[in-house]
């Protein structure tokens, strides 16, 4: 499956400023694994040590939240993942 991933600006330090990446995978977890291959180190900005998606992060599949059990959520060819971080300034 070819999936487009939109990377939040605050995570683009891991991608050298790249906003969109093309990955492949059958589910969100596989897509993130593929993202890690392209951008080594990005998974530590996405998941905790146990591999769980960080609490202040949300992953949307075509504008729908992938919560709960985000990593096992299936994706289809042409889907778009959007990774978002809670922003806290006021």
């Amino acid at each position, binding site marked *: 499956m070819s999936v487009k991933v939109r990377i939040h600006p605050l995570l683009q330090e891991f991608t050298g400023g790249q906003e969109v990446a093309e990955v492949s995978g059958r589910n969100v977890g596989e897509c993130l694994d593929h993202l890690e291959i392209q951008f080594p180190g990005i998974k530590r900005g996405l998941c905790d040590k146990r591999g769980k998606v960080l609490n202040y*992060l949300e992953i949307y599949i075509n504008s729908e939240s992938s919560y709960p059990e985000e990593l096992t959520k299936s994706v289809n060819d042409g889907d778009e993942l959007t990774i*978002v971080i809670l*922003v806290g*300034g006021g």
Partner: protein
Amino acid sequence: MKRCMLLESDLVRYGRQILYPNFGEEGQKELKESHVAVAGLGGLGSPASIYLACAGVGHITVVDDDHVELSNLNRQILHWEGDIGEKKPLSAAQKLSQLNPSIEVTPIFERITEGNAKDIIKGAHAVIDGMDNFEGRFILNSACVAEGIPFIHGGIHGLLGEITTIIPGKTPCLACVFPEGPKIPGMIPVFGVTPALIAILQVTEVIKYLVGFGELLTGKMLYTNGETMEFALVNLTKNPDCKVCGGNRK
């Protein structure tokens, strides 16, 4: 309950918004009878409280525990150079009362804590999130869920913004989506226009909610990116295991 009356001066002052078909004089009366709490009087809370006052929300509670500093003035438009050193709620109340003497403004100079949050928001019909830290934001979220008061969440970073309207018992709460906030190392960058944009959307939500028209950002998060001018609307999901509102599920 007998509705309040609009004065001749109200009909003039608010005439242009009264012309709006879904609003009218009844909408103006609704605002006049409403009480909105603005938690945090920084980049979000400043424009939010100004537009609430301009719109004629009858009672505005403004809360902050900070004093005005020079570094606030690129975005916190309620506070001016002559206010440096002043308590933000007092600086805010002074301006808002001058802007619209017909409304009641209650300044509260306190840090929002688990111990006082419910008391501070008690009686409000809506709470605007103008917090600049995650701890206070999550405390407010919990207090609003507990008290059944709508919470209009806003957050910013640089040119990025986000907003959602949380209706306790109906929509996901902030902790459903983000059980905790990230650790912020030091100060975050911000242009004044970013919180201004989000604050104006927050007030738009409050007006629609109080009067009862239009579509709300309930169960949705609007993300704004001022650098790319991309706005994205996504659907949020309620967390049945949410420690804050899990028990309120319908």
